[in-house]
């Protein structure tokens, strides 16, 4: 069947089997592998994407059901070369170690802040309660979201510069981020 939807602001059209799950459509057909595929049982939340602005577990949504809707993945968080404050917050506050849960966590955080710009720690913990992180113990994730809430305009980090750091073996935080922490 033919489906079309908006993904990160762009219209996409594909011919798919009705049984294709949204997570596999995003990863394998669209090649957007930032959305991770985890437990496959609606538990872990690493596959969370935003559907019309709301977090959904894309392993439990058919691509066919998402047709006509607006989908935002982790690749759509940064805009015009600037990281989303949530992404910057995860860097500043060490919101990730292995990074597997991070895309889903960041999208849920984005949706939370869009609805509630100044959540308290309990509200953040509730918002991410359907998502599992096995590294951080959640404390740094909560701090990362609080950092984003405190810096709604975002930081001045350049996406290209950030990518370079993340892809390299060097784990030193870039100067720009370091400066932001001190400020």
């Amino acid at each position, binding site marked *: *069947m033919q489906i079309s939807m908006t993904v990160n602001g762009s219209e996409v059209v594909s011919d798919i*089997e*009705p*049984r294709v*799950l949204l997570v*596999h459509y995003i990863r394998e057909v669209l090649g957007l592998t930032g959305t991770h595929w985890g437990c*496959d*049982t*609606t*538990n872990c*939340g690493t596959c*969370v994407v935003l559907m019309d602005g*709301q*977090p*959904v*577990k894309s392993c*439990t*949504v*058919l691509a*066919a*059901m998402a047709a006509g809707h607006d989908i935002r993945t982790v690749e759509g968080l940064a805009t015009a070369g600037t990281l989303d404050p949530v992404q910057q917050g995860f860097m500043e506050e060490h919101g990730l170690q292995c990074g597997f849960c991070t895309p889903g966590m960041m999208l*849920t955080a984005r949706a939370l802040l869009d609805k509630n710009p100044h959540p308290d720690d309990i509200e953040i913990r*509730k*918002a991410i*309660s*359907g*998502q599992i992180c096995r590294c951080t113990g959640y404390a740094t994730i909560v701090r990362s979201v609080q950092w984003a809430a405190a810096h709604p305009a975002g930081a001045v980090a350049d996406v290209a510069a950030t990518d370079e750091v993340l892809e390299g073996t060097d784990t030193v935080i870039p100067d720009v981020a370091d400066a932001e922490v001190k400020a």
Partner: protein
Amino acid sequence: MQIPAPFDYERASSVNDALELLARHGPESRVVAGGHSLLPMMKLRLARPEWLIDINDLFELDFILLEGDHLRVGALTRHTALLESAEVARLFPIISDAEAVIADPVVRNRGTIGGSLCQADPAEDLSTVCDVLRAVAVVRGPGGERLVDMKDFHRGPYETAVAPDELLCEVRFAVRPNSGSAYEKVERRVGDWAVAAAGAAISLADDGSVDAAAIGLTALGLDGTVAEAEGVLLGQQPREELFVEAGRVAASACDPIADQRGGIDYKRHLADELTRRVLRLACARAAGTQEG
């Protein structure tokens, strides 16, 4: 990788269109709303519908309306919408209590009240809530609309009164004066099914005595409400010793099974304790509405 068996997909454009699609494709077609029960079952190949009828475009089934002395809730109303409704919290706090512990926030963005009721999982919280509130299901089929009481709606695990060519469209809750309700669940972690849960709804007469009582238990092997425990309270002034007695009666009336979530003794203990807690809270809430 869990992938459903092949099926054909159609999206309904109206309730009538959904009914026509169900009639055309026959009993091997299934309605999908939020899909958070059906799709996992299809991924495990426990369900293999030949046709999937998607009703997510039927905005006519997505509403929460107070009309006269009834709250009307459309079958496509998402859990999140029920949880965030101030009117629902004011009139039926048991629904808000339950919604806060159904699955997790992300799942609640998709799952619907109609889907929960039609899935009819024995551990489903909203089935107990609707039993306790004596809700009425509005079901439409080729022959028109019919009203089904909850005691007739549930036919057993995963079975309901909704025929293959019918669609659950709405759930109606009667608003009763001087009423209070509550729900409490014990779960191993967020998003898990209940180890056990209890719900209660109480209406008070003008003299403060219990005029009507309903007590329901989730995942404890009971259908409907626990009439024996309700009888303990009727006509009495609410007080702790009655809550204790009702808890004891509910614990002996239930029929739990031992599984990975707990043994029979533990589950009976939960039936007792949770019944007391929800009765305390429901009575306090009922008294609160009376004072207000």
